[in-house]
């Protein structure tokens, strides 16, 4: 008991500071959302729920929410899937497993900004590296950043490339924690590899899977670095996600009140997404 109290006392200053900063920022944001807060004026009136009313009728915002949800689903499924496949591969006894593990972690070392710059260089039009190779091979060059679908695909690809090592590491650790006795017992009972995986291994992985999916989803939904570096929301509005729209309102249009309103809505969406995953997956965990 004394040791527990002592432990808590040690972390108390940091906890207070973090709580204060988080709560203060959140409360300040709520205050902003009830005001018109243009940074090009010194008049910042209280407007009640006007910002929320405007947001409800804002077609651009809802279109960006739909785009963000599409982006989140695509990124989560692909990053999770790729990470899981690599984790399964590395969980087997293959040659150079250690080296491969290191190589697969390389994307994780780069920041999202560096990843965005890399992708921009590779896919630059009309004669970036990829298009140059296409030309050499006689393949038609593609308008990577001018075509809405391709541009969207590129920001998904950049996210998946950078984030899948996270899924790989967590799931690999989880796979390696599955007791061998259970698998052997299943084998003795006549279960094949696939059946053993579905009925023995997978149930034990649901906890880590839930964590990976939640975290990947939150990261994807709140992505802004890649958009800022690679496309700035274009071409047209094809990659203008809700998080980037919030940034635009705050730091390009100087409308902090409206940006704060968007922030609150995005926060609510994040909470809903998290609760949804927990509700779907937790009973099975």
């Amino acid at each position: 008991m004394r040791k527990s109290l002592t432990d808590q006392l040690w972390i108390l200053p940091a906890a207070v500071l973090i709580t204060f900063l988080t709560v203060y920022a959140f409360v300040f944001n709520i205050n902003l959302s009830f005001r018109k807060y243009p940074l090009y004026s010194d008049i910042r009136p209280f407007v009640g729920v006007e910002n929320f009313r405007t947001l409800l009728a804002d077609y651009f915002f809802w279109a960006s929410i739909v785009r963000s949800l599409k982006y989140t689903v695509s990124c989560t499924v692909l990053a999770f899937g790729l990470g899981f496949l690599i984790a399964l591969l590395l969980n087997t006894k293959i040659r150079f497993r250690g080296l491969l593990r290191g190589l697969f972690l390389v994307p994780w070392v780069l920041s999202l900004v560096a990843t965005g710059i890399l992708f921009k260089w590779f896919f630059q039009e009309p004669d970036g590296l990829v298009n140059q190779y296409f030309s050499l091979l006689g393949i038609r060059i593609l308008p990577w950043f001018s075509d809405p679908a391709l541009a969207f695909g590129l920001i998904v690809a950049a996210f998946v490339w950078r984030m899948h090592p996270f899924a790989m590491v967590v799931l690999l650790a989880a796979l390696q924690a599955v007791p061998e006795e259970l698998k052997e017992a299943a084998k003795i009972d006549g279960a094949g590899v696939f059946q053993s995986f579905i009925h023995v291994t997978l149930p034990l992985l649901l906890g880590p899977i839930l964590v990976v999916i939640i975290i990947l989803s939150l990261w994807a939904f709140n992505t802004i670095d890649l958009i800022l570096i690679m496309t700035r929301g274009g071409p047209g509005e094809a990659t203008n996600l809700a998080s980037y729209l919030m940034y635009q309102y705050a730091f390009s249009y100087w409308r902090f009140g409206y940006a704060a309103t968007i922030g609150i809505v995005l926060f609510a969406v994040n909470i809903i997404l998290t609760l949804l995953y927990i509700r779907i997956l937790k009973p099975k965990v």
Partner: protein
Amino acid sequence: MPNKDNKGIKSNENLWEVKMRRCVRWLGLVVGVFMVVGISGVAFSAQEAGFPPNPPQQITLRLLTTAWLSPLHPLADWIGEKGASLYRTRYNKWQKRYPNVKIEEEIVPWEEIGKKFIIMDEAGNSPDVVIVEENFTPELAAAGRLMPLDELLPAGKKEDIHPTLGYLLFWKNQLMALPTGTDARLMFYRKDLFDQAGLSYPTADWTWEDQMEAARKLTFDTQGRHPGESGFNLDRVKQWGYGFCFGRTVHAPLSVYAPNLWQMGGDLVDESGKATFNSPQGVEALNFFVNAVNKYHVSPLAVAGADYPDIEQGFIKGTYAMVRLGSWECTPANLPSYIPDKYGWTEIPTPTDGKDATMSGYWSWAVSSRTKYPQYACALATWFTDVEFMVTMAIQGDLYNQLPMYKSAMKYLPVGSDMAAMTEYELRCAKGFPKLLGGWALWDLMESALSSAVRGTKSPKQALDEAANEYNGKYWVPIKE
């Protein structure tokens, strides 16, 4: 009494005394003259209008700037060794004049400096002096973040600023910032590619039709076929005649589209700041670029997603024979470093019945309204925007992003030089950012519209109408000075 026997010595002694007295007298005279001159000089300097005397105690001025306009750490990579050396010399002279004024510099990327200043000011932590792009000045002034400089400036400084471009620096008829130098959007062309095609170089009297005709001859696929010729393969083009950036960059509406709009007699906004680019002139101006991609096939679809560096790189690599770039490309760090002797520039081609127009942007020194030392902050700004210094730096450093913005500067420019020609062009027909509040939404909407039109997802008229109506309905803020 002098000793007759020591007459010589005594005489010598007397003579020596006399000589000494004379020496002392002359020395006193010389010292006195120096003192008078020195004191006069100091007095003159101290009383030089706009420059207060050295403060009795040490003060610190905080300066927020970007790398290539940093007086303490001038970026030689950008402004060349000569430019950097001149900047350092100028700063050393400032230090000698004001030994008690310490300058603390914070350098941020140029794209972020306006935002950084606004955030710092909101936090009550603004620097004393800030170097900002001109389009931020109205927004900063409207929010009371800048100090009017009229009462602090030397006589004649305010009146010397070029009126057409300098209007952005005035708020309620008060001057809020001092401009440095400006630039101009030009048409650059590859001399070697023109030589290979056997074409004469572009001239200042070129029309849009001349440009498209030349661009067609300069565009060819891997089999050497030009647009319009049988078998021309749009997917295998090796060289394009014309490049421009219509991606998500402010260069799209301002550097590329706006000059064409102004040439047609249209404008981006009206006096109240409402969007007017969807006029018939605006549609015609946009059609020039849409046709370049979709009708004449002299520009790739890639321009719809291209940023300014993409076009610059494409020009250097020889992918584009003609491009729309800024005059800063002629500074030593840019094109002369990569393709010296291979490029040329000329004025932007005009429509047949149109008028000359180009776009110019600039940076300016402003003083924060929160500064505790307004006199010294303004003196610093005035020091580094001295006309003769700026022109000297521009000429000696080959800084084509520092074309003079002061009327008195023309006399310093060498007649017949590139710099004089560019300056004459921008003084004659350049326009800049319109005066807007919270107006960045205008550029975002326009970027989207321009890109959509070139990609063919919307007609030029539809794209421009939607963008203008969206801006006027949702983002437009009336300017109340």
